[in-house]
C-alpha cells in the first residue's frame, strides 16, 4: 500500500480554486486520515480468455455473470407466470395444460423468482459488482472462493432446470415444499423432480455461503482509509445486512432439504406422519410435518428481507442522487435496516397461523410482526422526506424509485392486515395473500432492480441507456403491475383460493371470469414490456451514446474509478481516501451541488457540510 499521505499536491491545486482568497492556508490536520492498516491486496490477474471471462476472479465480472444467469432464470419464471395466467384467464386456450402442469408452474415460478432470481440478482449480482467499488476495495477479499460461488450457483441453476426434463417433471408441491404431500405419490414430480429441487437448493446454499463470506468480510475488513461503517452508502448497508441474514437463515433451509431428502430416499420419518394411502398404511410414521414448516419459515421469513433489504438500500441511494438531496436520517436508515434484519428472525411463524401449531404462538408472532412495521415505516417516511423540497429530476431512475415507494407502501399495508391472526385466518390462502407478497417482495424490489439497472448501466458498460425506452418500460410496468395485483386484493376478499387450477362451477368462477381475463391480459403486456429493457440494452451497447464519467453526479466511490468501466483492481495506482458520507448533495456554499466522498474537508472549508 502506498503509505505516503495521499494526494497532498492535488489537494492544494484544487483547493486554491475552491477556497480562493478565503482563509488561505491549508490545514493538514483537518484532512487527517489515519494510515493504512491492511496491506495492499495482492491480486491474481487473468492470463487467458478462460480466466478472464469464464472462471474469472474479478468481482465485477462475477457480478455480471450472476446477473445474467439470474436474469435467465427470471425469464423462465416469467414465462411460467404467463402460462399460469393463460390457464386462469383463458382456460379454453390452455387446453394443453393439465392440473399437474399448473402446479408445477406455480412451484417453479415461486422458487425461481424468490431464490434463483431475486436473491441471486441482489446479492450475487449487485453485491459483487458494487461492494468492492463502494467500500474502496480492489476486489472481494477471497476472489477464488468468489469464483467458486458463482459456478456453484450456475450448477444449482442447471440442476433446477434439468428437473423440467426428467420423467414426471419438476416438483409441483408449491414453492414451500410442505411435506407430507411433497414426496408422496400423486403430487407431480414427487420422484426425481423433488430430489433435483432439494439438491439444487443445497448447492445454492453452499454456493451462496462462499459468496456471502466474501461480501461480509470485504465490508467489515477491507474498507479503504476513512471509510467508516457510518460513511458507507446505504446500498452497502442493505446488501451487508441481507448477507448476514442469508448466512444465518440458509442453514435452516439446508437442514430441511437434507432431512426431506432422507425422508424421500431412505424412508426416514422426520416430517412424515402415519399415512393411509388407498386403505394401506405407508411405512412412514411418527414424524412431524409442522417441524418442516418451522424450519422452512425460519429460513423463509429472513429470505423475504434478504430480498427487501438490498432494495431498501439501493433505492435510498438512487433517491438521494436523483433528488440532489442528502438522505433524510441516514443513521435512522442504517439502524432501521439492522433492526429489521434482527427482528426478521423472530417473526417466522406468521406464515403458519392456520397450520395447527401451538395456539399461543399466534400472539407472540403477531406482536413481533407488527413491531417490525415500525422500522419499515420509518424508512418510508425518510424516503419521502428525502424527496421533500429536493431538486427532483424526473428521469427513468427516479420514476422507478417513486414506483417502488408506492408499491411498497401498498404491499406493506396489506402485510399489516395479514400479520394479525384474526384477519389472516379468513384471508389466508386467498388471492389477497398473492397480491400482498407480489406487491411487497415481487414488484417493489423489481422496481428497484430496474432503477438500479438504469442508474449503474453507464458504469458497467460505459454507455447511457435510452431514456425514452426507459420511460415506456416504466409506465407500462407500473400501470400494468397495478392492473394485475390491485384486482387480486378484491378476488381475495371475495374468497377466491390461490393455487387452484380452476374454479369449476363454484360462484368464484362465474363471478370472476371478467376480472381474471383482465388480469391475464395485463400480465401478458407487463411481461412483454420487460423485453423493452432487453432491447434497450442491446441497442445501447451497439449504438448508444458514450457515458461521461459520473453521469449522475453522484458522490460514492464507484463513480471515481481510474477508468470507466472500472478495470481489475478498480482504482488504479492508489486507493481513494474517504473524508465524508456519500450524501453531500446541494450543500450550501459548495461550488457544485455534490461533494464526492474523496474531497478533503479543507477543500470545502467554507461550506456547511454535515459532520459524518
Amino acid at each position, binding site marked *: 500500500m502506498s503509505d505516503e499521505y495521499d494526494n497532498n499536491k492535488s489537494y492544494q491545486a484544487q483547493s486554491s480554486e475552491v477556497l480562493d482568497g478565503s482563509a488561505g492556508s491549508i490545514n493538514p490536520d483537518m484532512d487527517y486520515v489515519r494510515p493504512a492498516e*491492511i496491506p495492499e491486496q495482492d491480486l491474481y490477474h487473468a492470463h487467458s480468455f478462460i480466466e478472464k471471462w469464464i472462471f474469472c476472479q474479478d468481482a465485477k465480472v462475477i457480478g455480471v455473470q450472476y446477473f445474467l444467469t439470474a436474469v435467465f432464470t427470471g425469464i423462465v419464471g416469467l414465462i411460467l407466470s404467463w402460462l399460469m395466467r393463460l390457464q386462469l384467464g383463458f382456460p379454453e386456450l390452455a387446453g394443453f395444460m393439465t392440473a399437474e402442469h399448473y402446479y408445477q408452474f406455480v412451484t417453479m415460478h415461486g422458487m425461481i423468482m424468490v431464490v434463483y432470481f431475486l436473491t441471486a440478482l441482489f446479492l450475487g449480482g449487485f453485491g459483487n459488482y458494487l461492494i468492492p467499488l463502494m467500500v474502496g476495495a480492489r476486489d472481494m477479499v477471497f476472489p477464488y472462493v468468489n469464483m467458486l460461488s458463482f459456478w456453484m450457483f450456475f450448477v444449482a441453476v442447471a440442476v433446477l432446470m434439468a428437473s423440467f426434463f426428467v420423467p414426471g417433471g419438476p416438483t409441483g408441491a408449491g414453492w414451500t415444499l410442505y411435506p407430507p404431500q411433497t414426496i408422496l405419490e400423486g403430487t407431480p414430480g414427487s420422484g426425481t423432480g423433488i430430489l433435483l429441487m432439494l439438491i439444487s437448493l443445497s448447492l445454492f446454499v453452499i454456493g451462496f455461503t462462499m459468496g456471502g463470506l466474501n461480501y461480509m468480510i470485504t465490508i467489515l475488513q477491507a474498507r479503504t482509509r476513512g471509510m467508516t461503517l457510518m460513511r458507507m452508502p446505504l446500498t452497502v448497508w442493505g446488501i451487508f445486512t441481507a448477507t448476514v441474514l442469508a448466512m444465518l437463515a440458509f442453514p435452516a433451509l439446508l437442514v430441511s432439504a437434507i432431512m426431506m431428502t432422507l425422508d424421500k430416499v431412505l424412508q426416514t420419518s422426520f416430517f412424515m406422519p402415519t399415512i393411509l394411502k388407498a386403505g394401506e398404511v405407508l411405512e412412514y410414521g411418527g414424524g412431524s410435518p409442522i417441524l418442516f414448516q418451522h424450519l422452512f419459515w425460519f429460513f423463509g421469513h429472513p429470505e423475504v428481507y434478504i430480498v427487501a433489504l438490498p432494495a431498501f438500500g439501493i433505492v435510498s441511494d438512487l433517491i438521494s442522487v436523483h433528488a440532489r438531496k442528502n438522505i433524510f436520517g441516514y443513521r435512522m436508515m442504517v439502524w432501521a435496516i439492522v433492526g429489521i434484519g434482527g427482528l426478521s428472525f423472530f417473526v417466522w411463524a406468521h406464515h403458519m397461523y392456520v397450520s395447527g401449531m401451538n395456539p399461543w404462538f399466534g400472539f407472540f408472532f403477531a406482536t413481533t410482526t407488527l413491531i417490525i412495521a415500525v422500522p419499515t415505516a420509518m424508512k418510508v417516511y425518510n424516503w419521502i422526506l428525502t424527496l421533500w423540497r429536493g431538486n427532483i429530476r424526473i428521469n427513468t431512475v427516479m420514476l422507478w424509485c417513486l414506483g417502488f415507494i408506492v408499491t411498497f407502501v401498498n404491499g406493506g399495508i396489506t402485510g399489516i392486515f395479514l400479520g394479525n391472526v384474526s384477519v389472516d385466518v379468513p384471508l389466508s390462502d386467498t388471492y389477497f395473500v398473492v397480491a400482498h407478497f407480489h406487491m411487497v417482495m415481487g414488484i417493489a424490489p423489481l422496481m428497484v432492480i430496474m432503477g438500479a439497472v438504469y442508474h449503474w448501466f453507464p458504469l458497467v458498460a460505459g454507455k447511457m441507456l435510452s431514456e425514452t425506452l426507459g420511460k415506456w418500460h416504466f409506465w407500462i410496468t407500473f400501470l400494468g403491475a397495478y392492473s394485475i395485483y390491485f384486482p387480486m386484493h378484491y378476488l381475495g376478499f371475495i374468497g377466491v383460493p390461490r393455487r387452484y387450477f380452476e374454479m369449476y362451477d363454484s360462484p368464484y368462477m362465474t363471478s370472476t371470469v371478467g376480472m381474471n381475463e383482465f388480469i391475464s391480459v395485463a400480465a401478458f403486456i407487463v411481461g412483454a414490456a420487460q423485453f423493452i429493457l432487453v432491447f434497450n440494452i442491446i441497442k445501447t451497447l451497439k449504438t448508444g451514446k458514450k457515458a461521461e464519467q459520473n453521469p449522475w453526479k453522484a458522490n460514492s466511490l464507484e463513480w471515481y474509478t481510474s477508468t470507466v468501466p472500472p478495470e481489475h483492481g478498480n482504482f488504479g495506482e492508489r486507493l481513494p481516501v474517504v473524508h465524508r458520507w456519500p450524501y453531500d448533495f446541494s450543500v450550501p456554499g459548495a461550488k457544485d451541488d455534490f461533494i464526492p466522498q474523496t474531497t478533503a474537508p479543507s477543500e470545502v472549508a467554507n461550506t456547511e457540510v454535515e459532520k459524518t
Partner: protein
Amino acid sequence: MSEQKIDGFELRPGFKGMASDTGSDQTMFKGVHWGKAMMWIFLLSDTFVFSCFLISYMKGRGSTIVDWPNTSEVFSLYVGGVPVPLLLIAIMTFVLITSSGTMALAVKYGYEKNRKMCGWLILATAVGGLTFVGMQVFEWSKLIHEGVRPWGNPFGAAQFGSFFFMITGFHGFHVSIGVIFLFIYTYKVFAGHYDSKKRGWFTKMKGDYVEIEILGLYWHFVDLVWVFIFAFFYLW
C-alpha cells in the same frame, strides 16, 4: 490476539473498545486476518446448521409417542461379558479432545515459527481425527448389525435411528473434511510453505502460519459440536 499495535488508532479494551473498533475506518475486527474472520463467520453459519439439526431432534424426540430407546443401553459395549454404558462414546470423546489439545499447541508453535513442532502436532491431530472417524465407522456398523436403520430400529421410536445417523453422519462428515485438510497442512508445514510464503495451489494466495490457526478454529469447532452431541444425544 492480545498485544498488538495499530497505527493512529487507540486499541481500547472492553465495550468501549468495541464501540471505537466498530466506529473506525478500514476494519472492524482490529488485527484479525481476513481468512480468520471468514472462518469465524463460516463457523457461525455452521453453528446454525447444527443448531437446526439439534432443534429438529428435540422436536422429533419430544413429540413422539413411542418410547425413545435408552441410549445408555444401546451404546454400551460388552467388556468381559459386562455391559459398560457409553464406553465407546467416552473413548471417542477422549480422542477428540486429545486431538483438540494437540491442535491448540500446533497453532501456538506455528505462530512461534517452530516448523517441526507444528508439523508433528498437526500430524498427531490428523491421526486423532482419523481414529475418531474409524471408531465412528465401528459404532455405525455395530448398530446396523443390531438392526438399527434410518427408517426404524428394534429399540423404540423410529426417529432414533434417523436422527442418530443424520446428526453423527453430518458431524463425521465435518471431521473427515477436517482430517483431509489436516493431512494437507501437515505436508505444507513440513515442506515449509508457510516459511517461504509459497502461494496456494488454487487460490494463489501467499502462505502464512495464520492458516494453521484458521484450520485450528475449524477443528475446535468440530470438537465443540461433539460436546453438544455428546450431551444431547448420548447422555440426555
